[in-house]
């Protein structure tokens, strides 16, 4: 029933596909982190106007599916002269979607640090900068890490959607092989294994990071 020679022959396809998945999601996640950091910074510093724009952006990005965002970027924008490659669209899409999730995670981390911590540091003779870097930020990071890790895994999984704009990731490979050879068992098994191989370690590293930065309980 299960054709191992097929797996041997086409496993390299999935390795190639996974390279694409990794390429898109790693760059997309880094972009999301940068966008998130900027947005969280703007919200916390209460920059006028920019803050409202960030709020609107977060609401829009959190309440629309990535697939529709990608279709808009890939098929819609060229009509007004903005032509991006599929890779660019995928990365921008992931960054746009992930930015808001990251911003919320970071903001939640910072807001979880009670005001009294900063005041206490101030009373003890820390400068505002010192109290931020030595007292507030370490606690904020430990509060934000679980959310950020969850978002990284979420974005990695969301990247499976990029096959819809003809990027040859693992989803695309699976669908292609099923279509060409009717090799449902083997292709789906390789698809599941590919994701497990990459996502299991990420989720384990995530758990480790959460413990590593959990200063309160360490």
């Amino acid at each position, binding site marked *: 029933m299960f054709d191992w020679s097929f797996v041997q022959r086409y496993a390299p396809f999935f390795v190639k596909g996974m390279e694409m998945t990794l390429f898109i999601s790693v760059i997309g996640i880094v972009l999301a982190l940068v966008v998130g950091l900027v947005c969280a910074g703007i919200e916390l510093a209460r920059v006028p106007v920019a803050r409202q724009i960030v709020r609107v952006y977060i*609401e*829009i990005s*959190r*309440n*629309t*599916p*990535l*697939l*529709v*965002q990608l*279709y*808009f970027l890939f*098929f*819609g*924008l*060229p*009509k*007004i002269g903005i032509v991006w490659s599929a890779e660019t669209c995928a990365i921008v899409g992931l960054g746009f979607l992930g930015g808001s999730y990251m911003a919320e995670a970071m903001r939640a981390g910072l807001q979880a640090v009670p005001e009294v911590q900063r005041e206490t540091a101030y009373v003890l003779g820390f400068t505002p900068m010192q109290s931020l870097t030595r007292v507030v930020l370490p606690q904020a990071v430990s509060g934000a890490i679980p959310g950020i890790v969850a978002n990284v*895994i979420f974005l990695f*999984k*969301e*990247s*499976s*959607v990029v*096959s*819809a704009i003809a990027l040859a990731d693992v*989803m695309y490979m*699976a*669908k292609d092989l*099923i279509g060409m050879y009717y090799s*449902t*068992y083997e292709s*789906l098994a390789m*698809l*599941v294994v590919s*994701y*497990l191989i990459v*996502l*299991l370690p990420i*989720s384990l590293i995530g758990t480790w990071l959460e413990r590593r930065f959990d200063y309160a309980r360490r």
Partner: protein
Amino acid sequence: MQGAEILLQPGVMPRLLQGLWVTVWIAAVSVIASVPVGLLVGWLMTLKSRVVRVLMRIYLDFIRIMPQLALLFLAYYGFARWFDWNLDATGACVLVFILWGGAELGDLVRGALQSIPEIQSESAYVLGLSNWQGFVHVILPQALRRLLPASVNLATRIVKTTSLAVLLGVVEVIKVGQQIIDANRFQYPTGTLWIYGVIFFMYFIVCWPLSIVARRLEKRWAND
């Protein structure tokens, strides 16, 4: 703003709304059916039996770690081959969303139930309430407050994930949009931008109120 007239063409908006209705219907059925599944899974997770807990753990972790699109492929292409069970695309979507929503909701239920201190049910018992009364009148109201905001957020995620149905060939709002775009390719070459823009907006209009409700609930019940 050239090309926007496509939206005023007779039949365009009504058809898009019909497509949106399919999307909302799939999402609604999935969300409603996830509730009993989630309650069951959550209850199973709090049981003492190690076998049941390990099984539930594997179920939850597998569903969590696989991209939803991969799960859809497994149900749509896999089930037909493995079990000779020919689900149509809509059926596969609903099944996957129920299994996924049930797993996620189950974990939320477990968290909510376990966050209620043991002493609450003990006190209820001492005060003369039966086990069932204690559960309904003491544990459940508290658990619901912790459960509801996250569940509404989960519903938003399910609505958004419904967009993947188009990749299995379900004729929902995105597919209808593509059909309209293709039919008007020569008449309105820039229609693509507008149609996808409207679909984008439609999803936003459906999901945004849910997000607001979730946030309100969270705020109101945060400090109770």
